[in-house]
């Protein structure tokens, strides 16, 4: 059996899971499921980085565990935390009983009182889950180093409890928006994929699939407009999510063609323009020109 049909089959699976992927992405994802390396996905905001993880978890029919990174993320929120309330309560209850102190301590620091946070949860699932580590660039370097260690050993040590060995190797997808340069070590450990803004055809397919009620004519216009808008010098380019929002908004506003009512189109541009400079910079004349081009 040759490999090509396999990639195509996988591409079709992705499509069934609601994710429209290029063949090269499908090939990478197929490889990703085989090589057991984490996958690092980069690209501008709104090109569908996070959606990859969601689609994979649908295809494999396994849980999706998400760890949203932010500055100051620490072990207590990412890996595990002791359930203090229960521990304190247990201590009080143990006072009443005649139990030896060593055993009492062992009991208080047992898995019963351990709250699993995403990383620990991911490696102790019985079925390998998809672990999405979103916006890794927002966490600080210390956490990145810790993550690197966890991802290579798939085991976590809790001082009070000992080392917890992973029961499975999760499929790890990392996304980054490049607000900070990631360490070379992390980059090297990962497979890498850079997602570009979608081509006209791909974006049209996405809009048609996600919002079939928009209709082919308006969908075509919306996509052409957004594609042209991305070529102008915006501070923040609209992603696919914004295109979908805008198409949905136009549908609500009962616009069936962009040239039908420029005023309404102007009003609905809040879906696409996300900074003050951008909305001030896009004049009516400019919008009319873009609309004319999109028809």
């Amino acid at each position: 059996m040759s490999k090509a049909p396999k990639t195509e089959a996988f591409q079709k699976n992705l499509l069934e899971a609601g994710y429209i992927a290029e063949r090269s992405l499908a090939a990478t994802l197929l490889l990703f499921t085989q090589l057991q390396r984490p996958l690092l996905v980069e690209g501008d905001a709104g090109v569908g980085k996070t959606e990859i993880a969601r689609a994979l978890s649908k295809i494999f029919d396994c849980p999706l565990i998400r760890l949203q990174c932010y500055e100051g993320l620490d072990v207590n929120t990412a890996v595990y935390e002791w359930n203090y309330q229960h521990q304190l309560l247990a201590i009080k209850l143990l006072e009443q009983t005649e139990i030896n102190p060593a055993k009492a301590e062992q009991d208080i620091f047992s898995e019963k009182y351990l709250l699993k946070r995403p990383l620990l949860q991911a490696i102790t699932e019985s079925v390998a889950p998809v672990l999405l580590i979103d916006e890794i660039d927002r966490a600080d370097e210390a956490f990145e180093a810790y993550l690197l260690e966890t991802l290579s050993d798939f085991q976590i040590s809790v001082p009070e409890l000992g080392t917890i060995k992973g029961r499975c190797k999760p499929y790890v997808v990392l996304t980054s928006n490049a607000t900070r340069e990631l360490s070379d070590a992390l980059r090297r450990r990962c497979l890498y994929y850079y997602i570009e803004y979608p081509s006209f055809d791909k974006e049209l397919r996405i809009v048609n699939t996600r919002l079939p009620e928009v209709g082919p004519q308006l969908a075509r216009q919306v996509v052409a407009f957004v594609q042209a808008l991305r070529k102008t010098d915006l501070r923040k380019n609209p992603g696919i999510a914004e295109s979908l929002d805008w198409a949905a908004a136009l549908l609500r506003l009962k616009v069936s063609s962009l040239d039908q009512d420029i005023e309404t189109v102007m009003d609905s541009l809040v879906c696409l323009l996300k900074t003050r400079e951008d909305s001030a910079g896009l004049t009516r004349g400019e919008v009319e020109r873009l609309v004319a081009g999109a028809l």
Partner: protein
Amino acid sequence: MRQAPARLEPQFAIDTLLQTRLIEFIRSARENGFSLGIAEEIDAQRVAQFSGITHPQHLRWGLRSLMCADRDDWERFDALFNAYWRPVRTQRKFQPSPSAPGAPQAAQREDKKGGGQGAAAEVDRSGVGTGRDAGDTGVQKGASRQENLSQADFRFLADAGQMRIVEDWVEHLARRMRRKITRREKLQCQGRRIHMRRTVRNSLRYGGTPIQLAFRRRIRLQPRLVLLVDVSRSMAMYSTVFLRFARGIVKAFADAEAFAYHTRLINITQAVRQADPIKLQHSLSLISLGWSGGTRIAESLTVFNRDYAHRLNDRSIVVIVSDGLDTDAPDRIPPQLEKIKRRCRKLVWLNPLLGREGYEPLTGSMMAALPFIDLFAPAHNLQSLIALETALIAL
């Protein structure tokens, strides 16, 4: 629609020839600046097993994901892949000036980064070298690529009186510089917010009554200063004071680093840290070949990015001291500065000429650098440096 995350069987047997070719490909990528290790060589074999060579496109996609680490790599990969796997005819297209296989890595890198201007720059360089080879006594204004082979005198660094003024000021600066407050917290015996985990742990001792409280506090981290001092001839008047500055900084800040550059970049952190004036003199003299010669800012920054930039983090403040007179093409500077800027917190450029009446930063390199600079300030002697205190503290 469960699709079996189960392993696929390898679909293609790989013969020894392909194995060798793959390893060679990874080696050549490594020479071209890709960061790859043994693990990648092994996984490349597995990629080939799954995709086979009958579908080159799949092999390309697979290897691309495996070998690239960032967008730069991503965009360069196709050319590299074509150059290696396609017939020799197309191979010529890749590198404008392909170097011999045995050539040192640094030279290859330079060719690649310099793009099409490789050969032209070479001619330029030798022209400068022979034309103005007037030796040490000849007056050389502005920038040149020539290295000065005489050894400079560093006794000034040991001048106790001057050094003390610098040290006092730098220590003052180090104390006052704004510390980055991290969101991460550390354990304290006093404070306002309770550290639950440790408190529970402590309370076990007292049968569950939290008598001994533990507190947490945010960590404040000192900025890491990285100093890049231009010590070329055009800067000769000022390098004394800046090397003193570097010495003070390296001593006062825990993990500061200092570099000197002219046509090459040299790490002088260890050297200036030495307390013994004779040893200091000795170790600086050893690395001073080329001191007070020409300047190659872009090249030095490239080397910095390649060898040292990975040490920068979001606490780093990079201070470049230079007059911006450079013999490298100005358009080589922005990409390098952008790389530094992406890794550090603030980028400071101190220009001794800026204090002069009527000077405007109009040299090509300076103009190219301006958009990336957070603080652009004059500094030509100790007094002007001290005057910068407020600006530096506020960074």
